[in-house]
């Protein structure tokens, strides 16, 4: 369609229809194999949906994009209160959670489970 320029939505649908008819019914709806925008991934209930880059799962629903090992970055989440429901937050519930170990990746066994309240 070089001479006529579609302007409104209906014109675009007419052009698509014309193109589809030209290619014959079969090819009309060939869906190329290429990466279409991924559908919203499914997260089991209970997963935090904050992705920077994510706690239980990354934004693609998997673990490839997670901070690994989690102990390497854990203190950054702790003092940033980034996942208040998942990681003890330094402001409120666990001010001295890191007292027993300065480098989490080395002495992660000393980190304890926090029961708020």
């Amino acid at each position: 369609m070089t001479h006529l320029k579609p302007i409104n939505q209906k014109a675009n649908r007419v052009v698509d229809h014309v193109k589809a008819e030209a290619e014959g019914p079969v090819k009309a709806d060939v869906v190329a194999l290429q990466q279409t925008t991924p559908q919203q991934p499914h997260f089991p209930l209970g997963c935090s949906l904050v992705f920077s880059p994510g706690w239980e799962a990354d934004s693609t629903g998997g673990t490839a994009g997670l901070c690994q090992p989690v102990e390497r970055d854990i203190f950054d989440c702790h003092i940033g209160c980034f996942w208040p429901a998942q990681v003890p937050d330094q402001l409120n519930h666990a001010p001295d959670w890191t007292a027993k170990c300065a480098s989490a990746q080395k002495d992660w066994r000393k980190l304890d489970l926090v029961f708020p309240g």
Partner: protein
Amino acid sequence: MRARIAGIAGGIAIAVLPLVAAQPPQPPQGRRPNAAAADEGIPITDPDVRLACGSCHVADDKGRMTRISYRRATPENWELTIRRMISLNHVTIAPEVARKVIKSLSDSNGLAPEEARPTMFEAERRLVDYTYAGDKDTHDLCNKCHSMGRVISERRTKEEWAGLLSMHRYFYPGIDGASGGFRRGGGGGGGGRGGNAAQGRGAGDGRGDNRQPYERAQDHLASAFPLMSPEWASWSAAMRTPKLAGRWAIAGYQRGKGPIFGELQITERSDTPDGFATDGKFTYARTGDSVSRKSRAIVYTGFQWRGRSADGADDPGTWREVAFIERSGQEIKGRWFTGPYDETGIDVTLRRVSADAVVTGTDVASLKTASSGQRVRIFGANLPARVAPADVDFGQGVKVARIASTTPDVLTVEVDVASDARIGPRDVSLAGSTKSAAVVVYSKIDGIKVEPQAGMARLGGAAFPKRVEQFEARAFSNGPDGKPNTADDLDLGIVNAFWSLEEYTATFHDDDIRFVGQLNEAGLFTPNIDGPNPNRSGNRNNVGDVWVVGAYVPPGSDPSAKPIRGRAHLLVTVPLYMDWDYREVGR
């Protein structure tokens, strides 16, 4: 554009049409003078509550304590609040006083049955696919950190909703920004200026609405879940301790293990108000193992059963019970669960039993056409001693050939199914009692489905507890239209499948399957140990995501045929470092 118009038309002119070049918008809306504070609020009369909470929550002349009288919630939410008072507001309160306060507030400021029913999955710690349909923005905002179950278990006045959100922003200042998205400009500078501009345009959503995300959620919640409701008005009047003492028939289902049937006795406990005790036994229909257990429970708000197994032979109180007592007092439905993440659970229905017979269900879920002598065990209570084959009715084309054995709670029969028997669910009736859709007659197994489709396990065992995930394979038939995943598909119940793991290749050099953990022949996945793994590249944890594949060979199919397969996605992830479990409710 004439400046005067912009002045008179106030903010809307700017906010509505983002096209308008950067004009001096009007100052942000200050705190709006709240509407004539509707004079609603539930007076608190219980002396324990007045004593425990009165020092900060002062009561007005009508006995309404600030904050407390303007909120209604489930027992679990009340416990969360009281635990925050202790951890963050430096309140000292003895455990038994706290339990009394939770009980009293759940009764005087609880939810009505109709309001509580959609929230039960939260208290039952059930992993369901819940999406709050009332307002997408509110869902996206609240669901970032915790399940919407906690939000829909609240009823508050407008000021109380505002107070709740201020609490969030006061204790967790980070959530204004990237981690919570409470404010639009949060991390990147308000109004889309400053910092890097790509972060959210600040000019509202084009409908003249320049409120921040949390303000919009706050307004929605205030109108969708107000304090007063006709349901609560009628229930708070009708509420009383339910009469539950007596015999109850148990019918339940545990994923991976199949149906359970049994019986228990509920008795009233004199030592605690609205307290009950149960004592009974149930058997796993597919294996015959039987479990006897006792439990103690308290009923909140007249219909919320919260219990905990107690001094049973093999169970020192690790199983908890959350159930909903139907208004008729004839049926109690809920979930018994255990495990550090409450992941192992039985969906339980208790039905009151008088003298006459009750059929609660069958051990097999489906019967194949053109088969004879299929053994079916029918469970129930007060089943008649002498039964003739004709007394047991499975409907057209399904005939009881022989009565194998009869006891008061199990009747074993052998059944012949005609080749032309109609396909579909069938009711079983015996001695005047009918169990609807007890079995499904099918002609061919077309495939199997693995449940849950999105499983989650958490590493543990070193510093933190493990979270296991139980899988189950269920056979299905495509039903009359012959096409899978359509409304007329028939679920044929649990089958014993051969289980295996397969790499979910999210990346090209994915090696999760070697580290995540084991899946046993019963479909139970046990994750690996937590902590950095020195012999994995980059000292990574043993996390990963894998396929869980079930393969099943239907009985009587020719040996050369390939097994029918089904699979599900399993996310094996890091542990939770905080445990928000409700420990006081039901004590």
